[in-house]
């Protein structure tokens, strides 16, 4: 081959500089656009404090966030949507209780109340980053498919939609949908009547003092009734 050392040097120089200039130009533009894409105006002191909590306890070496980090535990990008305030709070405050039935554990790191609240606000902010609809499992298209699965199993019901929407699947399972943090819901209708079940959904400890389920202040009584109706229909 008649490639001279001088030509080789030019290939090196042009290749490197070309790529570098393109990369730096796009970096500047990215900085401009990130303000909008990440809602930087909502990046409050609490959110930043929450990020520091996330780092202080090295959460990122077990969990991924934006898909980066350890692959040992679920991705946290859309954790707020998946678990809500209550779900995140419970898991961080009492992992030994929430994951007592899981074969993989989460460490109890004794976060202060303030730290947990900051972490929740941070997750809420992260939830709204425009990730081009990543991750697929939390994409807007995915709940439809799991709801479709629920409907295929139990038929159309407003309670089924609420069960999904209120994040019940973050702890409970019906058939093959949901998780095993709390008990499965397939036969719960045989254990309680509708009124008790509706009460249980909002104030678990009033019905069963031993219950590990957190209070659900966000669920309205009428919604609880619909969910209870739906669960009664499963038995």
């Amino acid at each position, binding site marked *: 081959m008649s490639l001279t050392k001088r030509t080789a040097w030019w290939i090196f120089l042009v290749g*490197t500089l070309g*790529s570098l200039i393109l990369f730096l130009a796009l970096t500047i*533009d990215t900085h401009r656009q*990130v303000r909008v894409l990440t809602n930087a105006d909502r990046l409050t002191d609490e959110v930043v404090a929450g990020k520091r909590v996330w780092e202080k306890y090295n959460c990122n070496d077990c969990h991924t966030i934006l898909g980066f980090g350890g*692959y040992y535990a679920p991705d946290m990008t859309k954790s707020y949507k998946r678990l809500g305030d209550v779900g995140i709070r419970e898991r961080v405050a009492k992992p030994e209780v929430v994951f007592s039935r899981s074969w993989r554990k989460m460490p109890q790191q004794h976060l202060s109340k303030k730290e947990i609240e900051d972490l929740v606000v941070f997750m809420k902010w992260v939830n709204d980053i425009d990730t081009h609809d990543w991750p*697929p499992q939390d994409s807007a298209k995915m709940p439809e498919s799991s709801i479709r699965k629920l409907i295929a199993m139990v038929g159309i019901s407003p309670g089924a939609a609420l069960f999904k929407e209120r994040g019940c699947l973050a702890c409970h399972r019906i058939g093959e949908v949901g998780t*095993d943090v709390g008990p499965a819901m397939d036969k719960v209708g045989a254990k309680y009547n509708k009124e008790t079940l509706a009460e249980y959904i909002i104030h678990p400890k009033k019905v069963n003092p031993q219950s590990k389920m957190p209070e659900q202040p966000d669920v309205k009584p009428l919604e609880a009734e619909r969910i209870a109706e739906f669960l009664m229909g499963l038995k």
Partner: protein
Amino acid sequence: MEYQSQRVAYFYFALALLLFTLQVLLGLWLAVNYFATLPQSLVDVFPFSTARAMHTNLLVLWLLLGFMGATYYIVPAETKSEIYSTKIAYIQLVALALTGVTALIGFLFGWTQGRPLLEIPMPLDFVIVIGALMFLYNIGMTMIKAKNWTVIQGTLLGGLVFLAVMYLFGIPFYPNLTIDWYYWWWVIHLWVEGAWELVAGAIFAFILMKITGVDRAVVEKWLYVEMGLFLFTGIAGTGHHYYWLGAPRYWLWIGGIFSALEPLPILLMVIDTMKHVRHRKLQVANSLVWTYAIGGAFYHLLGAGLFGFAHTLPQINYYTHGSQVTVSHGHLAFFGAYAMLNLMVFYYAMPKLKGLENYADGRGKFGFWTMGSAMFCMGLSFGVAGVLQAYLERVLGMGYMAAQEQMRLWFMVAFVCGLAFLIGVLVTVYDLFFLKPKEESKPVRSAVAQPAR
């Protein structure tokens, strides 16, 4: 060994080998975490996150120590002069070793910056920066005083400066998570697909030239072309990490196109290596170095090139990003591209530093094949687990832990492969520390071989 100051390298290599062993032991522990149920009380004091921080930091530390050792070995030979100051070299080694140990113990007590691979807390970052500056000063002064510039030297120094500068982007606290990860990749990606490729390329070119006797002009010409291609595809290729982190959509195009080209320079390197080997002017002296050179080139292509390419396109990456597929690629790529290269340098330089021209290579070959095949098996297990995860969790919408249950078997397989890998590592490390001269009863083939310089 021609220059007294090259001896410094031996201590860098020795420490690197010990850290490598420790890294693999922690890796096995991580695999256990993946398939076994550990008691809450143990998880509370030694969580997966701590072990992972140790596993990954040990990797970075031992590879960097290997690179530095290699630099201290190569620079005297290239500049035809002694190292500017061996004292600085030793102080720098002790400083880095102490920082490393402090960081590892610190992780156990929760002293961390909490960002994967960059967990080392800020005060220790500054010690590392000082150590790096001492190193660069020492190497730079050696080259400047000798005034014997070569392309290999230039590439090596350029790569090392590039490496040190990129580390700075990992030190600050970024309030915005997206910006944080944007610059995190300036460290991680621009290291492994930029600065480290330059350093590794220069080291590889030096050893290839020494063992094949191919003309410097030819080796250096190819070095330019390969490095040009590495940087052309690698710099803008950083974009393949920017698909889903809250950056503009054009990164899907930039990342996709540039990283699709990333296997090219590696392929060129393999072809070029084979060509040099075919046109070699020297007889095979220590064939183990050859085994590592050729094996490393192919493994580099497999782990970094093919396994990287397999999930780099946005359409695929949407489903595989942040899954065990990444773990599979990570293990094969780091082992193929950088662990193999370092081990090649160790097998080239450590015998010479001990005054052995020819050594028995039976154990070393066993180590090479055991590690190589065990890592391949491990990479495949993680790969199968990853494909399962992508399909079950991301396509079917199965819950995270429900999907992990289906992958559990493959974590056990990965653990068994890991045990085999550990055997390979132990044999290799023992062999490098206690090299035996080749038995004299065999006909000496190296009569034609010129002494390596």
